[in-house]
């Protein structure tokens, strides 16, 4: 446990000494801010139009018309940004030869994988905390339902952690960071596509594909529902990819 902690501290140090974490957080805030204000101004436009029909005013709802579309739009960009954060975690150890220290120290490969994962998860948490300024504006100036905001953030965190564990797996497979990030994107795109394909392959198989799609499970979170099967999906996805990573590190092909 102490050694996992040492690794997490070290990785966080690297993230925040080098500009990597700042750049990623900055880009994320920029893009999500842009989306947020686009959606907000569209909402304003609509509310001005609706002033003319007082009967329709109850339909104006910040949750449905601002926050839901916001999360819906931000989630894809968010997911694809995560592998950039994780691409160096293991590939660099291999490339620089520092893995030779790590794997001759009294630390198990499981501890190494967990340390790397927790460090990435912590950065994701920081990233999400910063992005909370946008929903916060709605909370201050409007009166939305708070529940869906929190479930959406929980969903983003679970989804981000799943993407991070996938990114770490890809990073364990190559010493080239660019290959690591591109192959993680490849798998993410595949996991997206099978969700779309689900609609055209018949009900049973479609349900299976739907269940495998990494973004599909986020939908209910963004609507304010914590679905058990969604939580179980993300947690087992994380467990499975980290387990595979550990197997890769243990196999001699890595050395």
């Amino acid at each position: 446990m102490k050694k996992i902690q040492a690794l997490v501290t070290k990785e966080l140090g690297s993230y925040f000494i080098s500009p990597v974490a700042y750049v990623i957080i900055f880009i994320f805030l920029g893009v999500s801010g842009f989306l947020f204000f686009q959606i907000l101004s569209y909402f304003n436009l609509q509310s001005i139009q609706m002033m003319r029909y007082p009967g329709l005013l109850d339909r104006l709802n910040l949750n449905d018309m601002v926050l839901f579309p916001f999360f819906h739009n931000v989630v894809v960009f968010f997911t694809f940004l995560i592998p950039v954060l994780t691409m160096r975690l293991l590939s660099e150890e291999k490339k620089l030869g520092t893995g030779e220290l790590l794997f001759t120290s009294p630390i198990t490969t499981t501890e190494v994988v967990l340390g790397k994962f927790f460090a990435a998860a912590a950065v994701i948490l920081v990233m999400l905390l910063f992005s909370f300024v946008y929903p916060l504006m709605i909370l201050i100036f409007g009166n939305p339902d708070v529940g869906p905001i929190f479930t959406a953030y929980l969903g983003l965190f679970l989804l981000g952690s799943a993407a991070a564990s996938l990114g770490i797996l890809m990073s364990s497979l190559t010493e080239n960071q660019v290959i690591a990030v591109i192959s993680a994107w490849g798998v993410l795109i595949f996991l997206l596509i099978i969700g779309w394909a689900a609609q055209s392959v018949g009900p049973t198989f479609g349900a299976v594909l739907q269940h495998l799609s990494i973004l599909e499970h986020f939908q209910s979170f963004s609507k304010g529902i914590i679905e058990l099967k969604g939580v179980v999906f993300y947690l087992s996805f994380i467990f499975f990819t980290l387990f595979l990573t550990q197997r890769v590190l243990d196999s001699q092909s890595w050395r």
Partner: protein
Amino acid sequence: MIEVENLTKRYGNILAVDRVSFRIESGEIVGFLGPNGAGKTTTMRILTGFIPPTTGRAIVADFDVMEKPLEVKRRIGYLPEHPPVYNDMLVSPYLDFVARLKEVDSRERPQEVRRVMDLCGLTEVQNRLIGNLSRGFRQRVGLAQALLGDPEILVLDEPTIGLDPRQIVEIRELIKNLRADHTIILSSHILPEVEMICSRVIIIHEGKIVAEDQTAHLQSTLRNSDRLFVQVGQAGPEALESIRRVPGVISVLPEEKVPGGYRVELEREGQKIREDVARAIVTGGFGLRELKPVGMSLEEVFVQLTTVEGANPEEGGKIS
């Protein structure tokens, strides 16, 4: 204590280490000498548990490396060929991180980090980014890392590579001072270096151990050696031992492909030793079938080693 038995490592078709066996007692400082590509790094990586052997067994500090890797790793300080340093860390936090990995008690950690920085002359650069350090300093950071937690066994892979002459002298002094209470195995392709630091030498060539000797005899052994091929009817440990006991014989290794065949390295002092070998086999009743001279392997090894300091442009030249 390090005990290695029939260690073999294959990379696809390449046989990097070929049935290597040796034993190092506690407190010994042993040099692993061989030209580039001999298999030194591979052997050390197996000893430290970084890679598994293809076959064979390695026991380090009373634990089998394959069965109890963590116990072995707790007792080893390892300096790999390329110093395993993170360029984006400062020297002192890096050492603190490694100390935490090596389970140094949290109360003793600052003191322990200071101790190794002091020992390796790193105090003046403790707040510098490792990526900005010169090669010599990076090497010292690598060495400091290996000394953390004062492990009983030190495995140092070419510890003076890439250093300038003054630094080489310093690092050698440092290693010599460690020898009182450590078991040290050190690899090198520089003959004088091994002679200076080590009490015993294991010479490895193309993955095989070709000789083991006290350092004092090393040069003459290497320069004046001869190799015989013998085949006996009754092969076995007794046959091997009785050949080895013949005065002038440096080493005896079983020949893999020929049953009863041995490779015998001997001093190149005329026919006398050959006669003695033949006599030992006959009187021992092992059944001499064949005895013939075959080339001069140690001499081949000798010409591939760096025998003069400063011959390598990387480490010669600038004196600061």
